């Protein structure tokens, strides 16, 4: 049943352009138009049916340029080089355990020719591979998952199998579990990852300009630009909107997102990095930085500072924040401007 036409009014002294409308995947309806004063106006209706009222997003670059119709919401990103194949993830060669999780495995000994299970003394230990997942520092070394119990006689357990628990840390990296048969000296090594699968890489493109690599020892720009599919799609929508409606011709400068398999984004591991808290005091938190919302690939920092971005790629922070929320579907309470960048965050 159609409601019939309702009057949403106008703004900016009347509209100079025909309003455009899109419906987001979350059910929100967004209407944008340029007012006679040259500013961009936006009104949006949540899925509950309530309209926000016209908001003024201002303008940039000496006024708005030629209007380009906004592209439809992407089923798959066609112009930002997202590699959605990466999000498949399920067939990776190694097991992957989530950060800060407990995982049960079963250690046992078998006759190598027949597979018959026999009791034995086993010992287990974990270690880590240095410099994986973009953690290009090793002093102090990262915390490593623990395995418990780390030794025992399997004959004391039902089925001659000893349940062992791997408790992971918050650091995303590659580790290895060693299981030794102490009765004859043989051992196996099982590599596994700590982190999240399903993150996609956000490359340089005709709308994005990568920055932030080589600055904080999480490697160059190929290591700090991963996001969940949902967050990546939302960011691309926001960027498409911003570039098409607000400042055609520019790119959006993207800084820290997440590491390739997520986990702790430890940017403040050394005093040389120069992290400070809100009081301006130096923060040194190796393997435990305050960058927590980047751990799962649900956040992106859009930079607006010369030095990190070419001058003509500087975004209007407040406008891009609104674009993240209203066009990209990011969390309004967690999408904030932080000094020289806007931090857009999507649900986990």
């Amino acid at each position, binding site marked *: 049943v159609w409601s019939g036409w309702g009057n949403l009014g106008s703004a900016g002294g009347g509209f100079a352009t025909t309003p455009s409308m899109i419906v987001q995947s979350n059910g929100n309806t967004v209407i944008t138009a340029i007012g006679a004063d040259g500013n961009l106006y936006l009104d949006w209706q949540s899925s509950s049916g309530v309209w926000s009222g016209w908001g003024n997003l201002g303008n940039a670059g000496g006024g708005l340029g030629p209007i380009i119709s906004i592209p439809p919401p992407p089923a798959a990103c066609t112009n930002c080089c997202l590699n959605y194949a990466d999000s498949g993830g399920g067939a*990776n060669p*190694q097991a992957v355990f989530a950060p800060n999780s407990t995982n049960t495995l079963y250690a*046992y000994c078998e006759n190598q020719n027949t597979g018959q299970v026999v009791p034995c003394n086993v010992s287990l230990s974990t270690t880590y591979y240095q410099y994986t997942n973009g953690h290009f520092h090793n002093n102090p070394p990262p915390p490593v998952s623990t395995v418990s119990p780390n030794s025992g006689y399997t004959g004391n357990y039902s089925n001659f199998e000893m349940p062992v628990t791997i408790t992971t840390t918050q650091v995303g990296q590659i580790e290895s579990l060693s299981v030794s048969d102490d009765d004859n000296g043989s*051992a196996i090594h*099982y590599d596994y990852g700590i982190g999240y699968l399903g993150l996609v890489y956000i490359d340089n493109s005709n709308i994005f300009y990568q920055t932030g690599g080589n600055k904080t020892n999480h*490697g160059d720009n190929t290591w700090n630009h991963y996001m969940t599919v949902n967050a990546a799609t939302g960011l691309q929508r926001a960027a498409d909107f911003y570039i098409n409606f607000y400042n055609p011709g520019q790119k959006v400068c993207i800084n820290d997102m997440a590491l390739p*398999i997520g986990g702790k984004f430890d940017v403040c591991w050394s005093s040389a990095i120069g992290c400070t808290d809100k009081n301006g005091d130096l923060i040194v938190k190796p393997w435990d930085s305050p960058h927590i919302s980047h751990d799962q690939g649900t956040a992106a920092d859009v930079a607006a500072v010369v030095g990190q971005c070419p001058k003509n790629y500087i975004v209007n922070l407040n406008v891009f924040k609104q674009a993240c929320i209203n066009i990209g579907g990011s969390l309004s309470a967690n999408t904030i401007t932080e000094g020289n960048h806007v931090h857009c965050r999507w649900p986990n």
Partner: protein
Amino acid sequence: MFLKTISIALAFMSILGAQVPGIKTVASLSPVPLWPQDGDITRLPKGQYVFYDPPSGEYVVYYAGNTTNSQSAQPTLLRFGTHALVDPKTEFAVASTDNGAFRYTYNISNGSNARQAIQRMSMLIYSDSTPRTSQATWTANVGSSTVRDIAAPTMSAATIDWTPNASSQSIAPGNTVTGFTVDSTSRPGFTTVVFRGATQSSEYSPAAVASLPNDVQEQVAHVFKTAWDTKTGLVIGPRFSKDASQSEIAQNFLFGIQSLIRDEKLDSSSPFIQSTVRLLSAQLESSDPVAKNANNLMLSEAKTGLEAMIANALQTALTQ
């Protein structure tokens, strides 16, 4: 094709730990509890529907039915064979060709203690390469990868899948098949190879358990992922594009060297290994380019065999 050999040695490497002659038992690890070896199923853990049965090499699916109506429900008992009972060993070599490409050569053995023949070998390669493959009795298919290697997460990957032309040409325990070659313009680096064995038991498919509840299906699907249902290893292969970053290359070689040290294929106290690890670590921590003279240093210190192969591959990856 004229091959300008950059290493004539074939490196030798085994997968998943050293075998000690004469040992009759080995430690192992299962993602699920073992199926009761005495046949007593009265103490199966609640909520657990999938078990591993080492003697048969099968995962056992046992579902007793709806617990609220257990007396009338018929238990479901299914068995599916694993594909991980192989013992692959790989010899590999890389040589540069006169047209600026590389020829990668592999010989694959299956240990005499393996319980299955190797029936499939999948290698991750750089996706932009256009490899040409050959082997007399196996056929290769190159396709987009469904595998994401967490040890090389920035890699844009494709997969070469080799399968035997006939089941009799699979690699039985104790046998070797030689002459797997890949000609590619992609530069060398450590890459993952996944080996799959031939089971005589029923093959798992999602359709075979489609009638069972979702949590049962999820438990079964978990154990038949690549992580638990295959054996994996590292080889030098077509790994990098010409514009790969030095941090990618350094990270890749450091990972491979650490893995080979762990498997006791490389000696951590060797001068070559120590200087290479020190050099690559410094490069990663500083993001500075690897010094050109460092390559010469590495080559001069490398012993023949695996060390020389790694030194040549690293120099090629960094400089070409």
